[in-house]
């Protein structure tokens, strides 16, 4: 401030400014509120998600001495195990997501009625999704072992005898993958079912009744009313499932150990955690970037095919 300005002028000048600012800020402040509320989320994500992700991407392009290179990626794409892991993962994802969705959808349609004990039943259905992954692993590895509870059960009820014990874990690649798909289905179907049930409750009985009054058959009502109204929920369930199905690995390692049935994320952990050298750590990083790209591509592909993007554009108009 210039010292030779009259004090009165100065104070008047300042007053107008502050008044102006105040009247302005009341408007902007109101608009600012939601941004202030979500600011911590944005800051947190940039610090603890975006930053490490960028870090991982950058480091995956460097070698042990910190020199820029494509070497880590070349190593991955030259490795035949990567392609095996890729095809195994694709097989498991396609079959498990399809089977899980069909079964879960059927169950959700069936259960979407008021019945006695429904609250207790829903709790039961939530048990597999609340079980820790390690407990699921312990459960199945104690069950599928040659002298596990599954064979014991079958023997106790006389289905098999000691000579015909089933070697669940000793099968070939195909039966290994089928077993993994079944176990995954056990863990996940209740979860998908609950998401779909929640969506079905939003559709409401009255809409379907209206369809019935206008002479729709059950199948027509399902196809023309229920499924279209349920579409956002179906998309949510499918995307969440695709994302986590591609990242399957822990149950495989808990049952079979590393390298028996290579899948993508198992290879990341193998490189990072088991091999121990920094060279492999960087390969693990590069591989996890590849996995992230595959996951995003699959999710976007699904969104595109299911037409969720079009819907969003329509909303914008």
């Amino acid at each position, binding site marked *: 401030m210039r010292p030779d300005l009259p004090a009165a002028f100065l104070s008047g000048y300042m007053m107008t400014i502050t008044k102006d600012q105040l009247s302005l800020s009341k408007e902007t402040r109101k608009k600012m*509120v*939601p941004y202030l*509320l*979500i600011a911590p*989320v944005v800051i*947190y*994500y940039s610090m*603890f998600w975006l930053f490490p*992700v960028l*870090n*991982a991407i950058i480091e995956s392009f460097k070698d042990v001495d910190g020199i820029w290179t494509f070497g880590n990626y070349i190593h991955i794409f030259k490795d035949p195990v990567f392609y095996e892991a890729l095809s195994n993962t694709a097989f498991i994802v396609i079959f498990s997501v399809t089977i899980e969705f069909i079964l879960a959808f059927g*169950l959700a349609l069936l259960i979407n*009625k008021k*019945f006695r004990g429904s*609250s207790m*039943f*829903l709790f*039961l*259905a*939530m048990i597999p999704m*609340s*079980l*820790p*992954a*390690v*407990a699921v*692993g*312990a*459960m199945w590895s*104690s069950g599928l072992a040659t*002298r*596990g*509870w599954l064979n*014991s*059960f079958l023997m*106790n009820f006389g289905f098999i005898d000691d000579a015909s014990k089933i070697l669940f874990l000793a099968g070939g690649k195909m039966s290994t993958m089928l077993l993994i798909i079944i176990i995954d289905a*056990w863990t996940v179907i*209740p979860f998908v079912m*609950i*998401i779909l*049930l*929640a969506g079905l*409750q939003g559709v409401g009985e009255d809409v379907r009744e209206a369809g019935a009054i206008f002479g729709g058959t059950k199948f027509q009502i399902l196809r023309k009313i229920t499924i279209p109204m349920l579409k*956002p929920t179906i*998309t*949510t369930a499918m*995307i969440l499932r695709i*994302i986590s199905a591609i990242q399957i690995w*822990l149950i495989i390692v*808990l049952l079979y*150990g590393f390298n028996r049935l290579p899948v993508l*994320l198992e290879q*990341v*952990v193998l490189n990072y955690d088991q091999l121990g050298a920094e060279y492999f*750590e960087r390969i693990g*990083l590069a591989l996890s970037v590849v996995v*992230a790209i595959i*996951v*995003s591509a699959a*999710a976007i592909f699904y969104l595109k095919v299911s037409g969720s993007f079009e819907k969003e554009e329509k909303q914008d108009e």
Partner: protein
Amino acid sequence: MNNVVKRQLRRSAKRTSLYIVLVGIAFIIIFPVFFLFSFSFMSDYETYSEWPKPLVPSFKANFMIDKNTEGYHLFIFNKSEDGFMPFGPLVFANNEKDIDSLRKFIKLQSNCKISSQKIVEYLKVVDNNSRVEFSIKKDLLANYILFFKVVNGAPKAVLNSLMVAGATILISLSIGGLGGYAFARYFFKGKNILKLSVLFVRMFPAVSLAIPMVIILAKMGLYDQPLGLSLVYSVGQISMSIWITASVFMSIPVSLEEAAMIFGTSKVGAFWHVTLPLALPGLAACAMYSFIGSWNEVIAAVVLTQFNPTFPVVVYKALVGSQGQINLITAGSVAQALPAIIFTLIIRKYIIQMWGGVKV
């Protein structure tokens, strides 16, 4: 008339088939979980020496002591063989050392507690009658106690897990709750992106996120610390919290807040005195959901801990490294699963409500 009967018949047939399917699903869900629990109560003897293994753990074990010229012999009743089988040392004598080691063996192998005096008493009976049969009540929780004694650092790991979960709840509920409120009450640019953030953060595998976090946390001095781990968990939990709290706040009408403001409270006051108390049960459910998420997580914890592992890491290492017998490991797994199952029981209604509000 005939039609009415037909309709009623059809309806009851429908009902019956519904219940049959429900019972079938319940059976498929419970079947493996039952065995997880069942194994965790079995003694080493039941687990490894009976075949086929019992489906239900026994509550007691039957023993027999008999005697020949060499000395005393101990037998245990084996259900699968349907008879007494030799148990423990082939031969033992009536002296303090032998009886003490016998007592320890019985406790370790069959989870049954018996005092040395009692054994001596039985031996006296054997001297007179040539054999004695007796049964001892099994200590059902023995595996659980042993797991925490044998597996290195298990009690401390539980404490670590609780601290991680507590910090995760604090971070994710405060940050996510603000976001959820903004979501429920305001329109703003980037709302859709924020909505999808829950998907974005899942697309980069958690284990891969943990790898660069090692360096970042080490720089912050938080590597191998509960707080450091909770910072990583909060990334996923914040987005869940936004979804859950948004649906909680949406279920509370804005008009209540407006009414409070007419009576002279500020916006903040209205939130504090009206909305928050109403939202409290939903927020508690959200906290429990965060608890379950962080309590169960194992992969990032394996990468991000070294000397201060969380409880799932301890169980994971016991399972992968086969450090313990399977009955011990199942006991550890059940101990880990129980809090998650109980919290799920409490918040089951909110889980449905929450997913109802979630739409991509």
